[in-house]
Structure formats: structure tokens, C-alpha cells
């Protein structure tokens, strides 16, 4: 069996700030979602952008 790209055979790291405690994998997932959300709003849709506004 091929080895995993990342070694997952250990406990996840945690980010702890006051009462907020998040695992590093969850933080990565949240940051990725925010980046994809921003890209979905800002990136032009191929062949779809109107020039004079929708009627």
C-alpha cells in the first residue's frame, strides 16, 4: 500500500486561545473554506459576466 502523503499516525495538534480550542486539521479546513468562498465571489465565471448589467 502506498504511504500517505502526510504522516497521520499521531495525534493532531491543537490551537488553543482562551476558551477556543481547534485542531489544526479543522483550522486548515476552515481557512480553505474561507479562501474558496472568497475566490467564488471574486473569480470571473467563464463566459458569464454581463457587461451592461442584467435586465
Amino acid at each position, binding site marked *: 500500500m502506498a504511504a500517505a502523503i502526510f504522516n497521520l499516525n499521531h495525534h493532531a495538534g491543537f490551537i488553543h486561545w482562551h476558551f477556543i480550542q481547534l485542531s489544526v486539521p479543522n483550522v486548515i479546513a476552515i481557512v*480553505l*473554506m474561507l479562501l*474558496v*468562498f472568497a475566490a*467564488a465571489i471574486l*473569480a470571473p*465565471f467563464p463566459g*458569464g459576466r454581463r457587461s451592461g448589467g*442584467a435586465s
Partner: protein
Amino acid sequence: MSASAERSWTVRLRRRAVAALPPEKLLPDGQPTYVASWIYVFGVLSLASLASIILSGTILALKGPTWWHVSSIGHFFNSIHLWSVELFFFFMVIHLWGKYWMAAWRGGRKRVWITGAVTFLVAVPCALTGYVSQQNFDAQWISTQAKDAFNAVGLGGFFNLMNFGQMYSYHILLLPLAVVGLVIAHVLLVRKHGVVPPLELEQKLEAASRGTDPHRSS
């Protein structure tokens, strides 16, 4: 049509269904120009992920919950199932953010918003019961921890997280039925009401209906 046919429940149901969702609305051949944006893609990406979840889950159910421990093919389908769930939540959260910031409950779309939000809430225990059905130490750990949480909020009398049979039944039948049923209702409501327009466009349409320009001060 005869009087008896007029009284028939099937005729009345058909008329109501066609009135609510005429064929051109149910299966449209085009969408408004404002739908040409990446933010409108995440609903259908969630649907594609859900289809992958159901398909891989059906294959896993055919072979039983321990199959993926003893077969590389089982492991493959288990991984497809897991990553489809990860993508389902990933896309659904972005879909939810997008719809929240465009106030997608506007224009009589309250039920569209509610069915989407409830689908998200029901999908969470659907995933949880999957984690406790893995038949490994991870499942044992999660079930014992979640059992305490359910007891703490007073739900332990209804759900026993350490009862594998109950959790597996919830995971492969009851909760997927609820999620799929809610998603079908959500999509039909979107078809009925149409995709919500951007806020700016709605203001322009309202101004046009009143015969005023929203960007011109009087």
C-alpha cells in the same frame, strides 16, 4: 371530466402539483444571467457529493460494516464515502455562507432557506452515526464521548450512542432518508421560487416596478 374524476384525490393532487410546479419550472432550459457566478455552483456541488455518498454508502451497506477492514476494495469505497462526506460539508458550508450573505430567504423563499438549514442540521447526526459505525477504536472512543454529551443534554433516553445496531440503523436508513427527503424538498422549492437574485438587482427591479431609479436622488 366526469364528476367522479373531479372528486378523485389523484386528480386534485395532480392539479395542485402542476399548478405549483409546471413542467417548464420543474425542468427549466435556462437560468437568469446573474446565476453565472461561481458562488451559485456550490449547491449543485453539494448535490453531487450527496450522490457520491449515497452510491458509495449503498455499496458499503451491501457488504456490511466490517468489509472495509478486510478488503482493499472495501477500504477504497470506505475512503470514497468518507471524502464525499468531507466535500459535502465543505461545499454545503460555502453554499450556506453565500446564501446567508445574499439573504436568500427574500421573495417568499423562507421555506427554501429553512429546508436548507434543517438539512445541514440533520446531516450532522447522520455523519456522527457514521463515525460510530466504523467498527474500530475510533468509533468506540467517539461513541463513549458522544454518549456523555447526549446524556448531559437529556437525550440519552432516546439515543444510546453505544448501541451499535441503533446507530447503524440511523446511519444507513433513517437519517439518510431525512437528508434526501429534505434535499428533494429544497430543490423543488428552488424550482418553484427560482434562484434568488442578487440584492442590487432586486432593488433595481423594485425601483423599476415603481418607476424610479434607486441611484438617482430626487
